[in-house]
């Protein structure tokens, strides 16, 4: 884990530099107004789509603005059936150094740091889940569809201030449509066992 931690720190530095560059031409930012990061505070999250999370974690900042790869945090998605929820240590890899740009960001990051210091993991509200009689191997789908496969089911998370369900992943028709389109297995026991 230490390795990831260090990589995280290294990345923080580069991201921080990038952020500096961004700040310098803040007004030119080509973000659509609806997802403009600075316009949102934690208090707004209730109005956004998707369940309110204990920390107003901004996928649009991390994956959108900072262009972090999905698999930087969800790093087991390509190797395992389970995508894995990033550990608190993964978050702290960057946020030990990154405290947030403005007060709203800082408040949310402070929640993370408090949780880390207290040793209590943040309990995220789960958004996507498939029924218990279904096996969905993430790794196979990334193998078949490439690293950007995530959006096929999860939508463009890079544009979501708060993550919500775009596709009903628990609807078999959604799975089957794609499997028909790509002419891959529709055998029941591919997923049900």
């Amino acid at each position, binding site marked *: 884990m230490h390795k990831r931690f260090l990589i995280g720190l290294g990345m923080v530095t580069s991201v921080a530099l990038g952020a500096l560059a961004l700040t310098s031409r803040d007004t030119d930012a080509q973000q659509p107004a609806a997802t403009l990061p600075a316009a949102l505070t934690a208090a707004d999250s209730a109005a956004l789509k998707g369940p309110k999370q204990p920390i107003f974690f901004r996928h649009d900042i991390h994956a959108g603005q900072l262009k972090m790869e999905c698999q930087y945090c969800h790093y087991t998605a390509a190797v*395992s059936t389970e995508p894995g929820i990033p550990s*608190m240590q993964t978050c702290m890899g960057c946020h030990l150094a990154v405290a947030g740009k403005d007060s709203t960001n800082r408040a949310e990051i402070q929640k993370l740091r408090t949780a*880390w210091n207290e*040793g209590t*993991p943040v*309990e995220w509200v*789960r958004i996507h889940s498939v029924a218990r009689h279904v096996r969905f191997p993430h790794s*196979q789908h990334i193998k078949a569809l490439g690293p950007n496969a995530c959006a096929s089911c999860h939508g463009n998370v890079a544009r979501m201030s708060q993550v919500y369900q775009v596709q009903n992943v628990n609807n078999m028709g959604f799975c089957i449509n794609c499997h028909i389109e790509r002419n891959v297995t529709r055998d029941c026991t*591919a997923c049900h*066992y």
Partner: protein
Amino acid sequence: MADQQAADDVDRRQFLKVLGVTGVGTAALTGCSTDRVAKLVPYMVQDENQVPGIPTVYASTCTECATGCGVHVITREGRAIKLEGNPEHPVNAGTLCSRGQAGLQALYNPDRIGAPLAKNAAGGFDEITWEDAIARLAARLGQAGNRVAAINGYGPSTFSQLLEGMVGQLGGTTVSWQPFAREAESRANQRTFGRDDLPAYDFGVARYIVSFGADFLETWGPTMEQSRGFAASHGFNDGTMARHVYVGPRMNLTGANADEWLDVAAGSEVFVALLLARAAAEAKGSPLAGDLARWTAAEVSARTGIDAARLTRIANEFAAATPSLAVAGGIAAQHRGAIDLCHAVNLANVAAGNLGQTVNFGLGSTPTAGYGAVQGLFARMERGEVAVAIVHEANPLYAMPKSGNFQASFAKVGFKVSTANVMDETAAASDLILPNLHALERWDDSFSRPGVRSLMQPVMTPVRPGMHTGDVLLKVAQALGGSAAANFAEPSFEARLQAAWTVGATGDFPTFWRTSLARGGVFLPAVSSNPTLVDGAAALDPAAPAFDGDAEFTFLPYPSLMYHDGRGANKPWLLENPDPMTKITWQSWAELHPETARRLDVREGEIIELTSPHGAIRAQVYLFHGIREDTIGMPLGLGHTEYGRYAKDRGVNALDLLGAADGQGYLPYVATKVSVTKTPGYRKVAKTEGNPRQLGRGIIEQMPLVYAAQGMTPEQAYKAAGGETHEINPPREREAIDGWYEAQKEGWKLGNYADDATPKWAMAVDLSRCTGCSACVTACYAENNIPTVGEEQIFKGREMSWMRIERYWEGGEDGAPIEARFAPIMCQHCDNAPCEPVCPVYAAYHTPDGLNGQVYNRCVGTRYCSNNCPFKVRYYNWLKYNESAWPEPLNLQLNPEVTVRARGVMEKCTFCVQRIRGAQHKARLEDRPLKDGEIVPACAQACPSKAMTFGNIKDPEAKVVQWSRDPRGYTMLELTNVRPAVTYLAKVVAQEPVVHAADEHGGH
């Protein structure tokens, strides 16, 4: 339907997924399935070696018996979910018996004690802190002086050295003892060879095996290694096979795997052994021949009542085989003449020149002090000479006969300490309970035989807070101060273990340690050193052993394949897995020969009272052809008065009829005569068999060696033996069904169904190797989240065993010898599966890769499929087993790769489809084709005799193809034209062909 039932409950799979991310998780569910609200709780710091969704495997060592097999612990997200054999371990080479696999249910036992307990004035227990517990023990030890004693059931290990060292430091004594410790063998070896260690027996090269009550496929010795060897020699190989004769009053599973059962009375086995010794000595020109000359077939026949010609034949066969092997020392022949018997068997092996061939001293285990020593310790307790007694990994108050009054002697000990982590009989009688960690939660090692040093490591956070007894002892040493503190100064047992392992470490220690942990230990070849006979050893003149009482029947308590010495009785898998001979689950029973039962006018299920000079017990009758008419058998291991919810008050303890007298250093199990009284009671026998006879259906085929050696098929062998020409289907019918089958195959090509590149999964089972040990059944329960249903449901025939061992009897009537035939029966994955077309909702269907799929979430529970299945391998969830079968924390064992089925759903063997898909996924991620042998279903993985193989029948290189093409191959119930994917290879027997009666087909 399937999914709605659990809507209000914690959704198991979600729960596991959450757990997967954290180890601690909560989940809440509301309403219908799309509205789930669940929490995702991340790790604080994720272990680099844990990838959610991918199993992490740790090497460890099994502690369910004294053998010390190496295990691989499959863990998922920090929970152990399955135990499999460690392929690198020299003892079990990757296989694991039912008891070993059920070690998981000791780990997750719902009755585990979670804190130290101290007995209060009212006789109950109060929870105390570990500090308090250690202080109390140290204080008592400080006062006790040298009046300290320990009973240690844990074998040779660093821990045992620590315990012995500490107790010795205080001036006390440690007695190492486990039941079934093979004391008689050890003493006989002392007498014949002047050394008391036990040799290793090589069944794999023996050409003629004679067992005198030694159940080497069940509980006697390293059964996994012996099963492997037995399959190698006694299985059918290139036209030959070894022969096996079992001598004893009851045919146990080992006896059922013999080519011949010699049903001599208990106590007279020794004469047969002496006859073999004489015959071998004469044939091989051994100098022992003179001393043994008196043991002629006529003499032995007069003493045993066995026909002299038969004895002569067996003796000559034994003498002619090179190498041969005779073994003794099992509980079934542990009467007062057991030492003589083992002595005579030693003579037979020496005379036949087996030492260094099949009998290798120096490679086996060292004996423990045994029953005599522990009995001596209880005598000291009785005299009030023990102030503090520590009982570790042993349950003497259960495993020693009540007639010895050990309970009362134990009560006279000032301060009794038990380290049991479930409340067993000894713990309940103790003053202080210090629950030890389970073997999978602690650092430990085991030196089960020369050269083999196995390691254990904590594979997960303890299920219940406990403390390693090694750590307790080290802390106690510090509290005692003085030289104890100085000599046992390590900060933890882990440190002590590592320090001990630096001796003999090669290279840099951290690397050595890591490699050893990963391998499961250090396995070095040991050198055998075979002794010679002491002078005059051949002049053995055994007397008939004495029995307590003079009643009519010899009482034969025997070790249960599942419960062993009683420690298996709290594990539902072992209770539900039927005894392979009787097919009885969850119960005790008294075995009577049908003729005896007729004479006593008792029927199956009727309760009889057995009375010996030492006690009386009541048990239900089971009629069994495999026992002498003058003998009554009963399995050991049940009848606990404590030991948790599953074991307590279940069945009866056969030891209650035994005397505790020792005299020779072992407990004579077969030394009582019992009388039988019929009572008005009745209790249905909870057995899972249907009809015990094949009724000519040819389900389990068998053929004589002479025909198998000529490459005949079972059908040809049947005809060669004079059986009538037997056509499964007449030609016209054959033509019709073949045509229909081809038309079906055309139909399968429609749509995007199977193409040539799609594999077709198949299995082959060699019945010549299968011994019926049922390890596969337990493996299937563990792998596939199969619920145990309990006695009441078994009465209704509702067991859920996807995989079962079918046992059919042949003979046993009209003077014909009784024979058992075993076959593992699982879903046959028929090409023409009769279950599929009758499913109204397409829940049963055929997959492109040849599986007979069962889609749980489609199933509406009509059970038409089960009605239409000729093999009866489909099992229906009559009740909410998903809620009742795994009381916490047993549910942590559930395999997250397999759906837990809800009420109203049909289920069955899937050929471990999760393993198939897992291997396919892995291969695809690595951009390579699947290799043959990469997919091993749980049953085939566990099988000690490697009787099963699985693979793609379309791959010409696959082992399953070679097996399936064997002339011995056949499919079950061929006349139904269901075309199973499972091919059975007919069992080969060494007997001469018997000419068949025209009306009987099942025997071929």
